[in-house]
């Protein structure tokens, strides 16, 4: 490190500081404007937050967003953990050829690499056809949830897989030698080992769900307006307003809160230098 001359180190700092500022300026602007003067409130005030809390539409959207995030994250974590666990433990050492090796990887990466617009529209068409022919799955929170689980489970699988991949496989043999049956070794070895990945995966799944707009937008029905969709249509309808800024500020604050909480919880558990995921 010391090989970098002082002059260049100063230059790096000189460029990085504005980049950091640039990253936070838009978020700060939203927060500042949320206290800004509006009709009937000429000075700095918190009226927008009051309006927000009394708005039944916003509260309903918040409830839907939370329901969607928690339910989809629970199922997404379950399916994702099983996928990550199965692929790291039971895939043949030789790679497994096409059916057991390449195909599962391809399927898992599909939701990650597919552009979210294509993802959303494909689901729109699919649910439309299913509803037309069977009467099931009309567009709403359920279809949104199905779509969310589809993009959450691969990320959880990757997190769990990465955790198990760094594990000594002899541990599992040792537990077998000590006469643990598969269920016991799953409960007392696998679960404790993957717990940080499990918590991390669950929180990641929640963040992914709250973060998503495009896929939700195309799978939503008339009665399933969640917060991002509410904000989007409010911008399209009436442009900027202190109320939307207040809502945005609260969303930013809660996401940053969850992120920092997760970071400080896991920091003490894992000493290895992890790289947080971008979502």
């Amino acid at each position: 490190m010391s090989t970098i001359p002082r002059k260049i180190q100063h230059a790096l700092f000189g460029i990085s500081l504005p980049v950091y500022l640039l990253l936070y300026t838009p978020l700060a602007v939203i927060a500042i404007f949320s206290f800004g003067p509006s009709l009937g409130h000429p000075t700095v005030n918190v009226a927008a937050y009051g309006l927000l809390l009394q708005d039944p539409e916003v509260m309903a959207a918040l409830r839907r967003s939370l329901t969607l995030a928690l339910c989809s994250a629970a199922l997404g974590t379950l399916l994702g953990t099983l996928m990550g666990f199965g692929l790291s433990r039971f895939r043949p050492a030789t790679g497994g050829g096409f059916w057991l090796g390449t195909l599962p990887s391809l399927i898992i990466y599909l939701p990650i690499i597919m552009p979210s617009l294509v993802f959303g529209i494909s689901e729109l068409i699919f649910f439309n056809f299913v509803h037309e022919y069977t009467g099931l799955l009309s567009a709403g929170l359920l279809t949104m949830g199905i779509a969310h689980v589809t993009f959450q489970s691969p990320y959880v699988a990757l997190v769990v897989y990465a955790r198990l991949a760094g594990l000594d496989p002899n541990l599992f043999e040792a537990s077998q030698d000590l006469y643990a049956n598969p269920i016991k070794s799953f409960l007392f070895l696998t679960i404790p080992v993957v717990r940080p990945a499990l918590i991390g995966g669950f929180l990641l799944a929640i963040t992914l769900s709250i973060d998503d707009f495009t896929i939700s937008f195309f799978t939503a029905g008339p009665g399933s307006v969640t917060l991002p969709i509410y904000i989007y249509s409010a911008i399209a309808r009436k442009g900027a307003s202190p109320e939307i800024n207040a809502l945005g500020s609260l969303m930013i604050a809660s996401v940053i809160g969850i992120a920092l909480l997760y970071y400080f919880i896991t920091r003490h558990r894992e000493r290895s230098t992890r790289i947080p995921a971008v979502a």
Partner: protein
Amino acid sequence: MTTAVQTEARGRAWRLWLTSGPGLFWIVLFLLIPSGIMLGIAFFTNSDFGSPVLPLSLDSFSEVAGYGILGWSGANFTVLLRSLLQAGIATSITILLAYPLVFFIVTRPPSLRPVLLLFAIVPSWTNQVVRTYAWMELLNPFAPVSHIAQTLGLIPPHLGLMPGNFAVLIGLTYNYLPYMVVPLYAAAEKLDWTLVEAGRDLYASGTKLFFNAVFPQTLPGLLSGIILVGIPAFGDYVVPQLLGGDKAMMLGSLIADQFTFSPNWPYGAALTIIMLVFTCVGLITFRRLTQKLGGGEGAML
């Protein structure tokens, strides 16, 4: 003996499907099959209501190529070219910003690095609509930034920096910068600095040191960064929709329109095929390059 080995292998395969099966089945049922249907729709004929009907035809593809009732128009090519350009320029800017940022972080003490990296990533955890909306407030005609640009004569008076191509470019760069920072950081953190010292001992200049000793080591990270930024930026929907006007339309909005405002599903599906073709070409090219350069994916599936 062989039978025992076979039973063992069969048992493993059985357990693999038992654990991974439900998740894989979910993705096949709710994404692979739907996207297959979507691609198939491109080969149907458009009905009066915009839904696909028989007979099979290639009309939607000629519409993509620009042939309509009013003769040929190059509008679709312009949109495609604009999407490629915007994604390309946004990716380049993220590279130029991410390199100094990443090397600033890796030259800090090890205890500070995770926090500094976290600070660079946290904005990407907020909702994309909120992030993009923030730029609407920053770049609109009444915002101070626009006033400065007007005074400097960069834009005509009474116009803002949005909607337009410039605003879309800023929005894309802002949205996807962290996706470049993370893989670059992963590569830069593992950097072998003894190579740099060796180069210095041989009296290599700063630029030469960077391009011969540092840059090649970060190349795998850079290539995954280009994939992570370029592909979603190319297919982005929210940013051009909110920050761009009609004159800044990108492929994503053009596709979405065919399924919402003016339904024409076969045409929209054909446009989607074009988007997927470009996505796959980009993905395969950069993957090949990464493999050629021997970049490991680490603990990847």
